[in-house]
């Protein structure tokens, strides 16, 4: 076991040492779909802008928010959702796609985890620039609270690395999980408050029956890890302080994910390349 531990540590160490390679890989992943286009990956935020402009007038009415408020809410929510869900959906593909390269020469597995993490981060940052621009243009409130984005993002990157490793490993071992994960993430989008606001679940003047239904409904949020991860970075963008509960939830989640991912990494690290 100690030998396995040593090898796993070396893998992480070697993977970190190749930071130039995974940064360049991630850069390639972001720009590759837009090769030979004039504005390149800038299409990504433009797509988001169109999405928000189209949905804003309709959905703001449905959720009783002003158009401007809703557009900022949606842009921030969508950007953060893509990062959080990307850890899982991109993570589930990371090792499967890397196996071809792993068979060519000896490479640390962690190289692929870091690569995916950086790809997701780069894509997030591009869209984040647009969100910040929208906040400035619309004169949405911002201030010192917004800076809470930084610690939130840092914590999420740690959680994300664990999630990428965890889903990367189990999806390489059990290929049927890959489509399951993709479907689950699509469903998760609709039960997580991204398009809609979490407040709509709590009805203002409820009688007994309503209150019971309400607690069942808010369970969708209270026990939704994706929601708490989302809140750590979306709330600061909307000039709100993330709930203490969200920090605790994500910290515990990170601990659990790293523990599980670590165990699987120790067990499967040397075997992954055999699962082509």
């Amino acid at each position, binding site marked *: 076991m100690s030998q396995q531990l040593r090898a796993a540590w070396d893998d992480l160490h070697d993977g970190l040492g190749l930071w130039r390679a995974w940064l360049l890989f991630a850069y*390639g992943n972001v720009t590759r779909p837009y090769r030979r286009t004039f504005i390149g990956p800038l299409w990504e935020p433009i797509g988001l802008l169109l999405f928000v402009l189209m949905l804003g007038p309709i959905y703001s009415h449905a959720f009783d928010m002003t158009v401007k408020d809703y557009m900022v809410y949606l842009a921030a929510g969508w950007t953060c959702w893509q990062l959080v869900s990307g850890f899982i959906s991109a993570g589930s593909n990371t090792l499967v796609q890397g196996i071809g390269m792993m068979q060519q020469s000896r490479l640390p597995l962690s190289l692929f985890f870091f690569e995916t993490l950086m790809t997701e981060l780069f894509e997030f940052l591009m869209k984040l620039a647009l969100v910040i621009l929208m906040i400035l243009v619309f004169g949405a409130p911002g201030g010192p609270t917004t800076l809470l984005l930084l610690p939130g993002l840092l914590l999420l990157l740690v959680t994300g690395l664990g999630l990428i490793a965890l889903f990367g490993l189990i999806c390489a071992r059990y290929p049927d999980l890959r489509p399951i994960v993709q479907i689950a993430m699509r469903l998760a989008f609709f039960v997580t408050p991204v398009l809609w606001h979490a407040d709509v679940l709590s009805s203002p003047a409820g009688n007994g029956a309503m209150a019971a239904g309400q607690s069942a409904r808010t369970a969708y949020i209270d026990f939704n890890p994706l929601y708490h991860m989302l809140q750590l970075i979306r709330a600061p963008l909307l000039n709100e302080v993330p709930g203490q509960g969200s920090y605790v939830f994500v910290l515990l989640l990170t601990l659990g994910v790293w523990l599980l991912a670590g165990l699987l990494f120790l067990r499967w690290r040397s075997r992954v390349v055999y699962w082509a």
Partner: protein
Amino acid sequence: MRAPRGESLIRLTDVAVHLPLHRQFARKWRGEGPAPRVVKALDGVELTLQVGDRLGILGLNGSGKTTLLRVMAGVYEPTQGRCEIRGSISTLYDIRVGMDKDATGYENIFLRGLLQGLKPSQIRLRLDEIVAFAELETFLHLPVHTYSSGMMVRLAVAMATTISPQILLMDEWIGFGDRRFMDRVESMITDKIDSCEIFALASHNVELLRETCNRGVVLEAGRISFLGSINEAITHYTGRPPGKPPAGRRRNNRRDD
């Protein structure tokens, strides 16, 4: 894995590689009946390569040549036994893998160098030499999908030898491009073989093996059936009547291919 020049080594001790077969449930579901749980790709392999060794790997399809090369590169950690590797390794297995077709030749060389742990300054230092060597000057900044297959081969060889590896491992001689290109590629590769410390090549081309190697190993169903000088190995490999299966042990776990 680092070793000073002149001290590279590959030592395989009782190495076995059992490839797992995971789709048991799917097989059962389809009523295909039970399948073996593993494929024994290598079994009981003892082999030591030292500086100056040029090993030719012979064997029928599915006898374990590629698996052996992957073990020697540290790609497959043996499921049993030990594999000790000292020295920097470069592999030339399948030139199409590990190359980004949309990236330029320059970017590909750069990326491979980074993966080998080189710093950008170290890569730039060698770049001129690589480019001159591969005769790619005018194409270096064009995407690889514009390259002819001959150019692709030269780029692949240049990429694999960027670090001037101590150990060079090749799977099959790369064989396309026209006559003039092939001569060029061949002289290029033989150059690189001369400058590395340990070389191993798996091939069906016995004349090529005779030219480039001094030791030979014959694999049969994942086991070493002969290990000796390249000429003896070739005799052992081709010395039986054509069309007949190899004499000696036959195992039922051979992969069908």
